[in-house]
């Protein structure tokens, strides 16, 4: 099924008797649904409004992300939450859509400073499981009119409704960017450096660490962005803060861009054979958590992002890496379908929260038509 309009989509859902597997570009299918029939959103495509002076963009959900990024770039703007491209990691083909970014609340390294996709989403329109067209939020930056279903839809992976239109806050692309590269830190040391950088007044917009970076050597990266004079000044101040460390500074725009795509898209785990887990934790607890994980299972590759708040971990296929007591959450991003059927892809919720989530799903999709089972 590939409806060409919102009205047609609403009709399709209203008239359907079997559930749908909703697909934007099909590049980030991490959950497993029992639905057999695919419902594609690619027919709902196009940017309906873009006001650079108001920092807002409205697009139909099936609009290719590349089209949006190109349109923004032409005006010197961007999606500041830096959405990850999952294709390399998951080995998927296809064209990522803005609806998929929103449905998965997909962010990147800049999330630690600028916020997540959910923080830049101003409004949504969607078709719920009963075929009703519902809107919430709008296209202005401050809006507390009624309940915030915008946040609820973001990261709900299509289980509450099929997004038809999204409005986003966009931001200017800074004049320059620089990256500080530090070699040889152990994980606890790197976490401390990232934390000190992020608690400085110097507005670090990326803080990542790979215990086995290029050449299998530990590499820590800190990013600064802004006007040229300001970036140069802050680079100097950070070098002063870490004067006991040997720091290289990368300022070439292409190489800085490539470094952060390497982090954003978890390139060190691309094309490797293991399962990939994503942990969201309290940053200072990240090294300790990894020590526990390593004690329990062989861990093959690791990447810290968000100053340690996000950890990517690769392990042998089929491993249940998720510890019993976890403050935070773990998502199984890459695994075989069999593994994903055996292990919950998303963090199981405590009973009281699971009841609330189930209650919300039952209201928005009473017949269980939309991606059933994909998050639970």
């Amino acid at each position, binding site marked *: 099924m590939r409806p060409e309009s919102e009205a047609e989509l609403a009709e399709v859902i209203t008239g359907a008797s079997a559930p749908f597997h909703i697909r934007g570009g099909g590049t980030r299918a991490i959950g497993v649904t029992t639905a057999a029939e695919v419902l594609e959103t690619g027919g709902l495509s196009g940017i309906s409004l873009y006001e650079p002076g108001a920092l807002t963009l409205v697009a139909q959900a099936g609009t290719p992300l590349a089209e949006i990024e190109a349109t923004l770039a032409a005006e010197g703007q961007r999606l500041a939450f830096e959405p990850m491209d999952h294709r390399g990691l998951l080995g998927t083909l296809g064209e990522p859509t803005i609806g998929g970014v929103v449905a998965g609340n997909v962010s990147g390294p800049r999330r630690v400073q600028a916020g997540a996709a959910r923080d830049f989403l101003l409004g949504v329109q969607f078709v719920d499981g009963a075929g009703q067209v519902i809107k919430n939020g709008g296209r202005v930056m401050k809006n507390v009119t009624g309940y915030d279903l915008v946040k609820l839809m973001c990261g709900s992976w299509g289980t509450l409704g099929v997004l038809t239109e999204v409005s986003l806050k966009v931001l200017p692309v800074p004049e320059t960017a620089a990256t500080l590269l530090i070699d040889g830190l152990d994980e606890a040391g790197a976490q401390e450096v990232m934390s000190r950088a992020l608690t400085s007044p110097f507005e670090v917009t990326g803080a990542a660490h790979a215990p086995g970076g290029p050449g299998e050597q530990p590499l820590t990266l800190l990013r600064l962005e802004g006007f040229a004079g300001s970036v140069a000044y802050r680079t100097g101040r950070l070098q002063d803060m870490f004067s006991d460390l040997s720091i290289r500074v990368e300022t070439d725009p292409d190489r800085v861009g490539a470094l952060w795509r390497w982090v954003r898209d978890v390139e060190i785990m691309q094309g490797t054979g293991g399962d990939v887990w994503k942990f969201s934790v309290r940053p200072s607890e990240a090294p300790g958590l990894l020590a526990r994980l390593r004690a329990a299972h062989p861990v093959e590759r690791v990447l810290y992002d968000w100053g340690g708040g996000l950890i990517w971990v690769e392990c042998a296929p089929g491993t249940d890496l998720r510890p019993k007591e976890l403050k935070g959450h773990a998502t199984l991003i890459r695994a075989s379908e069999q593994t994903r059927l055996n292990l919950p892809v998303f963090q199981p919720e405590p009973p009281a929260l699971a009841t*609330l989530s189930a209650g919300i799903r039952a209201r928005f999709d009473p017949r269980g038509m939309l991606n059933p089972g994909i998050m639970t």
Partner: protein
Amino acid sequence: MQMPDPNPAILARKARIVERLRSVLPADAVIEDEMETRAYECDALTAYRCPPLAAVLPSSTEEVAAVLKVCHEEGVPVVPRGSGTSLAGGALPTADSVILGVARMNEVLEVDYADRVIRVQTGRTNLSVTGAVEEEDFFYAPDPSSQLACAIAGNIAMNSGGAHCLKYGVTTNNLLGVTMVQMDGTVVEIGGAHLDAGGLDLLGLICGSEGQLGVVTEATLRILRKPEGARPVLMGFDSNEVAGECVSDIIKAGVLPVAIEFMDRPCIRATEDFAKAGYPDCEALLIVEVEGSPAEIDEQLGLILEIARRHDPVELREAQSADEAARIWLGRKSAFGAMGNINDYMCLDGTIPVSALPYVLRRIGEMSREFGLDVANVFHAGDGNMHPLILFNANEPGQLETCEAFGAEILKLCVEVGGCLTGEHGVGIEKRDLMVDQYDPVDLEAQMAVKDVFDPAWLLNPAKVFPLAASEGRRSLALAAE
């Protein structure tokens, strides 16, 4: 503003309900005396008053849970209250409700600078959260005007903003986790010191739900390191259009000021009479503030002033000292006081797309003549959040009603140009009946369905947010089930 009739069965059971509340709380935490409950009869929307059945002041999450369990069993509505600074009537009681005040819960539970988080009980005031981390040069970013008094509980309920959210976002962007008590007494933990939700974003849903989904007793908030410095610049223009274009050009140029404040001529004149900040007498005035080291500030202000000069300003004033910076802010910060000095006023809170600014200001001027009431505009221009202040005389019969009618027309205008009814104050009772102008019945139905899940008997913060007609079926059903 109509409120539902109190349930006579609850009023008749007052003694029993109070007795049960006393059985779960210390003696001084239950207030039932009719003189004393008066203290809770209204919030900052003082035009509407109604003493509650009783008020309770629990000191812990456990006590909140015990209170809610009793009220749930008794079928008594509960109105959560932070500091009572809502401008929208968000904490207005009904005669058959129990006010649950969190004021006694004001402890800092944890500060962790390395992980950039603070955990507090939600009765703590907004400004004292920053106060708790200031010695290490940190701050909590959302800064509503009432920050000296307003509680974090109310900030979360209303998703409060402030002058600096162009750069730092509003409450929902700075809230990482909550402990919340549901109406039946169930305590839930959502989020924590980590980022983003593992399942559905319930935290995002709770923030801004106006105390209708649960009572938030503890919160984990993001704290930030203070910038090295900040400096404002003042610019005057001889038309609103030009000032609006200047705002748009600054934003497009890639500078992200922490604040862009806008005042129109009536507001400039009133504040000048009151505060004597030395503002120019012009149509529109902008205050733009940027942050960073002195050199970084120079770089940004240089660009901003260059843009401003292209728009033929009648005045450009850069603060050369802390004293001059304070003088630039003086008028803006005195604006509300200045209005109060002239007359009674009603403060509106609609948001519009920045591009619609000149049109909306022109229309407000026309409406001001039609309704025969003066209006002054002061607002956060960078994000389009307007605060028109309508002046009226509360002692003159009919003026409050005229003022409310005028306010409603302005808010409808905000919606018409692509904006919304409220940017940071919340719906409360004030904008409840205008919700149908922004949302279709099906949109409101989806929001009310969420309340059904969290509070099936519709006992929490009754008669707010949704038009009474829209929620009537649910409220009467809940009443019948009792």
